[in-house]
């Protein structure tokens, strides 16, 4: 192992992919003990740049210098050897192996041809986890761990392999507010021994953790400077190129009758454990109810149960006076339910179908799209052209495969289909997950617009800001039941965070 990394520079890095300039003359610099935040919208080139730094891609132009000396990485192994380590956004862990075994995969010191010294790896895991106070159980299987614990395993793994320079790609995207705070505190502690580059588009974290910030847009660095000198608003504006004010739910609340009433709902998870435990919730016409909670507390099962995709064991779901539990999805759709599902690429669209086919998925057998069991092309085309225009779907044409669009545009296709069908109610599950600010703004405006039309909305999200910006009331879900329902003005981040962690209010 070599010594410390006192300075890391990437100079004039340019990387072209067919048809795209992913990195355009980018230079960044990180000194010892510094934290550089790399911010930018999706597709701005952040991850490409880090893949170049880790040796996964070769730059077309430019060079990397460590402690003033030029280095060339042919693969991640070369980067490991120099002390760089990356925690990827999708955790790189093998589910059916233990923590120790996962570390052993990269810990070649413990390898001999016919024997793997797991006790040695285990000692190393314990040593590192104590040194950086990252609590992990070396003998636990990955599948037994929560997302937050898996994140710690990733950090421990990277540190065990000798990293003295950490690259973190959106490290908090799957964490609860508490876990996020803990992680930030931990990382801040580590800066006494390490330097960190961290990729994020959550500006609070950027402010809380970083000394320096570099903003990327369309493959270029548009700004570099000290974090403390700039407000979150400034950074957000530079990130998107124009100032963005996400819309807020500020109009007067004029909620009508209760339209969706859930009583004592019990539903099982895929593993046959109780996912919803006597959950009750009422939603009125013309209000947005935000369901806040750490993912995995029954949100998925709730949305599936309402939409007829999961069996209800007991309890009732009353929709406009009619019980809809355990009806088929078709019957629920025909009752007037609109649904923006969690997995947009899997449940929201048929990726290989064209945009226009995706638009009419739910109504393909009805007029005007079909007559006598034959699709009427002309009507479908004019309808699709209109939707693409109204919802600003950026695409080459309506015959483009929906799966080839970016996440934001796929979400617009789904939103267009669901809203244009004139639903009587809408369930939106993580509608803006992984989208950039421009797309988030559009989707928020649409949700507020249908609220204005007097339609009730159940908004399931793990982004507290999203929930607090849009909701009339906020219900907190924990372990399959509703902890508490707060009115919009009673809710604060701290209060919600405590409720989401399962603490009962007295």
């Amino acid at each position, binding site marked *: 192992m070599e010594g410390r990394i006192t300075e890391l520079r990437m100079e004039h890095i340019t990387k072209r992919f067919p048809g795209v300039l992913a990195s355009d003359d980018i230079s960044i610099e990180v000194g010892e003990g510094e934290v550089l935040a790399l911010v930018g919208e999706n597709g701005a080139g952040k991850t490409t740049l880090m893949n170049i730094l880790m040796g996964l891609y070769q730059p077309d132009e430019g060079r990397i210098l460590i402690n003033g000396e030029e280095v060339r990485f042919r693969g991640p192994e070369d980067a*490991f050897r120099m002390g760089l380590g990356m925690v990827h956004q999708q955790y*790189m*862990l*093998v*589910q059916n192996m233990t923590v120790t075994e996962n570390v052993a*995969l990269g810990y070649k010191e413990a*390898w001999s041809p016919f024997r*793997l010294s797991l006790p040695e790896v285990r000692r190393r895991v314990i040593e590192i986890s104590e040194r950086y106070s990252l609590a992990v159980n070396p003998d636990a299987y990955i599948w037994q761990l929560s997302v937050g614990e898996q994140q710690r395993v990733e950090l421990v793994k990277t540190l065990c392999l000798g990293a003295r320079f950490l690259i973190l790609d959106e490290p908090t995207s799957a964490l609860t507010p508490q876990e996020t705070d803990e992680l930030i505190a931990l990382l801040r502690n580590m800066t006494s021994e390490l330097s960190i580059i961290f990729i994020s588009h959550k500006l609070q974290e950027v402010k809380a953790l970083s000394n320096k910030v570099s903003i990327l847009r369309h493959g270029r660095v548009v700004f570099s400077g000290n974090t403390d000198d700039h407000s979150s608003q400034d950074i957000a504006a530079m990130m998107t190129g124009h100032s963005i004010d996400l819309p807020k739910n500020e109009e007067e609340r004029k909620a009508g009758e209760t339209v969706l009433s859930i009583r004592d709902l019990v539903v099982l998870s895929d593993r046959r454990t109780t996912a919803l435990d006597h959950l009750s919730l009422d939603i009125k016409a013309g209000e947005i109810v935000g369901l806040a909670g750490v993912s995995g507390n029954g949100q998925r099962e709730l949305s599936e149960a309402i939409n007829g995709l999961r069996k209800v064991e007991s309890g009732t779901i009353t929709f406009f006076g009619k019980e809809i539990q355990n009806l088929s999805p078709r019957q629920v759709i025909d009752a007037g339910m609109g649904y923006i599902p969690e997995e947009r690429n899997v449940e929201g669209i048929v990726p290989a179908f064209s945009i226009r086919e995706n638009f009419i998925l739910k109504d393909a057998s009805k007029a005007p799209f079909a007559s006598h069991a034959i699709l009427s092309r002309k009507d479908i085309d004019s309808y699709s052209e209109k939707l693409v225009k109204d919802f600003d779907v950026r695409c080459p044409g309506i015959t483009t495969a929906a799966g080839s669009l970016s996440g934001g545009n796929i979400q617009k296709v789904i939103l267009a289909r669901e809203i244009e069908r004139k639903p009587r109610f809408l369930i939106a599950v993580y509608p803006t997950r992984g989208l950039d600010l421009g797309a988030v703004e559009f989707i928020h405006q649409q949700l507020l617009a249908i609220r204005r039309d007097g339609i009730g909305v159940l908004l399931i999200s793990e982004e507290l800001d999203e929930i607090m910006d849009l909701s009339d009331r906020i219900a907190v879900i924990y372990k399959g039941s509703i902890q508490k329902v707060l009115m919009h003005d009673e809710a604060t981040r701290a209060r919600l965070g405590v409720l989401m962690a399962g603490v009962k209010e007295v």
Partner: protein
Amino acid sequence: MIEMLVNMLSMCIPFSVALLLASLGEMFNQRAGVFNLGCEGMMAMGAFIGMLIPFSAGGGGAVSQWYNVLGFIAAGVLGAFLGLFFGVVTVTFRAPQGIAGIGLQMFGVGTAGTLFRHFVGGTQSIPGIPDISIPFLSSIPFLGDVFFSHNGAVYLAYLFVPLAWYILFKTPWGLKVRAVGTNPRAADSMGINVSRTRYEALMLGGALAGLAGAYLSIAQAKMFSDTLISGRGFIAVALVYFGHWHPLQIMGGALLFTFAQTFQTQIQSMGISFPYELAVMLPYILVIVVLSFTSRNQTTAPTALGKPFNREIRT
């Protein structure tokens, strides 16, 4: 009654060897993420080459045991070569594994049959390999007959079970195999060569399938025919699921299946009036029933099973 049981058990153990070796080979393939339906074809090729060598040497008469050993070695090498070929198709060219496997099965069974007719002709038998009774142990009542009076290949095959366990769970190579079959992207990010590891596992699996075939022709049937393998390659694939990708459980599955088969032949030989068609079906029905009731245990399964890996494509 006890005599009949001892009889069945002592038949069951040598008969289970081909299944055991083939399914342990398939286990390594699947642990590395490659689903090999071509196991049957690899076994057929191994059975043919394994029989051809002692047959050519002795013309059907007595031969030195070394020709049998050579037959086994040739079958293992040929199987490894077929595994390599399967790797080119499924790992490098990323062909759909199920289709490629069916292709390999038809190729192997067909080629072995054709070559057999060309080089050997009609049904010919070979002397096979002798039983080795282990001194002292084989004279234990009952147990001696059941466990310690078999041909040498049986002992070697069963010694391979703990060895397979050790390789899978206690060596760096086994760790790599398990990682590339469950989360190849993670393995890749740790600097492990996914394709190379899958090739290695396929070659080991192929060698074991070849040996399994050679065991059938050299030690068990002492002949070759087109129908010698008769679906054992597919049963081996099923046993891997049955045994949850674990060597000891797979051994249990191989024994259970073979026991059902010997039981079925016993019923027939005892002249109990029972439609033999149904009796023959018994072991296969057993596999289907057991497979439908085994839980899909996602926690041990190699979750990347059947999926080609491509670093450039995110899924």
